[in-house]
């Protein structure tokens, strides 16, 4: 898919900062190099290199024994990944689009998430369910939905949603080394995004949010591609205000401390996500912050998600459905007027 921001053609290749997708490739390559039990499984992940190229080069480097192509049989594949994890492998199983998770929820929800608990700690399930989402490209309602709320709702699953190449690399490595199941949610609209701060960013573990920009009027809390939209809102539309932006990075575990410290300072907060608003993760975070900071906040903590409808196809409809810099800015100003 074409990059959304053209890579600067005049810059020499070695000087070009890593892109989001490079972070995935680096982490997979490094972890497979480090540990022979790490295998990659999925539809077209082998010689095909993945539908978005995320596994490109792995097949040539590690061979079909460890880069395992699967027919389009997601439920069987994920079940096999769970069984493999119980028998010594550390599978990274790819679900091509997050919407497809719904055809194979049993291995994720009833097996991987519950087995450790149901067996009283008798088994470990070291498995990464790698998937991607990303509305805004007219992919239609069955190839666009952000379902992190479903998986974060299931006890036993960790949920990582990186917003930049540095975090992709760090969080994917951490996910592969974790002895439990992790749902790793990439955003395809970020794949070709270079990360100019790749070398400057501090490497943070899962469960640590990152304060992306500091401010004193209001806190925006976001993850995935919404971090970029929120940044744009701050720079282009809210330049007269002092807005703090927190990239939550992982929903499970959730770094409520960092978010709460920010909201205690600013007194106001808006949680922004690409998932639809109703019964979404924003409501959960807003409620937890409210419970903790009831006497410190200066107004309601709100959330802004996609409209509660299937993702529409037509570009103007889809643009209206998803949060973006303009709607984030409007919601921020509205909150400040309360």
């Amino acid at each position: 898919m074409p990059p959304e921001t053209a890579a600067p053609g005049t810059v020499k290749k070695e000087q070009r900062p890593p892109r989001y997708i490079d972070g995935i490739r680096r982490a997979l390559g490094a972890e497979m190099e480090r540990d022979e039990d790490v295998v990659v499984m999925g539809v077209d992940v082998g010689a095909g290199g993945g539908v978005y190229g995320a596994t490109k080069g792995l097949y040539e480097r590690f061979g079909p024994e460890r880069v395992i192509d699967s027919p389009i049989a997601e439920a069987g594949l994920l079940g096999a990944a769970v069984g493999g994890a119980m028998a010594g492998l550390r599978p990274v199983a790819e679900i091509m689009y997050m919407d497809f998770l719904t055809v194979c929820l049993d291995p994720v929800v009833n097996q991987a998430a519950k087995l450790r608990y149901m067996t009283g700690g008798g088994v470990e399930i070291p498995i990464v369910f790698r998937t991607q989402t990303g509305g805004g490209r007219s992919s239609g309602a069955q190839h666009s939905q952000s379902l992190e709320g479903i998986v974060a709702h299931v006890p036993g699953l960790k949920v990582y949603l990186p917003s930049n190449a540095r975090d992709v690399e760090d969080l994917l490595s951490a996910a592969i080394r974790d002895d439990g199941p992790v749902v790793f949610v990439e955003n395809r609209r970020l794949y070709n995004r270079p990360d100019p701060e790749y070398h400057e960013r501090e490497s943070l573990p899962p469960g640590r949010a990152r304060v992306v920009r500091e401010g004193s009027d209001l806190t925006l809390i976001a993850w995935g591609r919404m971090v970029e939209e929120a940044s744009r809102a701050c720079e282009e539309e809210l330049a007269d205000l002092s807005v703090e932006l927190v990239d939550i990075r992982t929903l499970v575990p959730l770094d409520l401390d960092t978010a709460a410290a920010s909201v205690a300072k600013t007194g106001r907060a808006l949680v922004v996500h690409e998932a639809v608003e109703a019964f979404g993760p924003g409501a959960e975070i807003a409620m937890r912050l409210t419970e903790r900071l009831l006497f410190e906040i200066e107004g309601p903590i709100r959330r802004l998600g996609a409209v509660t409808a299937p993702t529409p196809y037509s570009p103007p409809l889809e643009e209206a459905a998803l949060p973006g810099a303009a709607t984030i800015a409007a919601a921020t100003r509205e909150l400040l007027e309360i």
Partner: protein
Amino acid sequence: MMVTVSTEATEALLEDLRAMARIRAFETRVARQFREGNIPGFVHVSIGQEAVARGVCSALREHDYITTTHRGHGHCIAKGADPVGMMAELFGRASGTCGGKGGSMHIADPRFGILGANGIVAAGLPLAVGAGLAAQRRGTDAVAVAFAGEGSVNGGPFHEALTLAVLWQAPVVFAIENNQFSEFTRSEEIWRGASLVQRALDYGVAGAERVDGQDVGAVREATERAVKAARKGKGPSLIEAMTYRVHGHYEGDATPYRDEAEFQEWLDRDPIELALRALREDGRGTDAEAAVAAAEEEMDRAVEQGLAAPYPGTETVMEDVYAS
């Protein structure tokens, strides 16, 4: 049909009887303890199906894997799980196999390759394919057996599991226990088309056969053929073991759908009775009866120990949710 026993096979049959009697004694006590209100939740027992559990597991090694079903007590015991821990688990006690967090449907013990009973019909089939894949990719000679009922073979995971196992030539044995009933429905009433064996062959398995699931030796021999092929890298096989579910789908099921004449026919071919008869004919009746008595005594002790064990402390409720 009688099990015919050659002299050299007598000792083997006595061992089989011992193993089957332990399962039977466990299950009859589970049913009784459930009626008495000592076991909460759902319980599904495998009375009448012991020859399948024993026949299959006696062809396996300790490091081989099994996945099983909601009706999995017998498979777990046959694969080496400790019935004392299992009984305590059914009572929901801290000393249970899973610390009281799993119960009847979720017993697992990876030390014996038992990757778990499962409350979701057909879910264990792909899990076994994954375990077989792991053995293959990690260069061990382990095989994985997926125990499943005939009620699972119409679900999507059966199709995907066979497809993937054949594609990857994974060392897997699909041990389909045909106990005649899919919950409350006679399985033959919801079956059209070719036989299960033919269906499996069409997926491209290395071998598929239907065996008499009441004949422990026949089940073992079929499993040995399948395991041998799997260890040689020839890929998966399927065995359909014909047996009969003597109790209801769950304890408390009044089985109004059961045909009494057929029920009696199957009881006449009870695997433990067949083994006892054959051993008596071989002049080993006393040893056989002693084996049954020993099994009953062992399981009485398991019940006593389980009932005496403490419940887990409520402070454990949040333990083991996430890997540390």
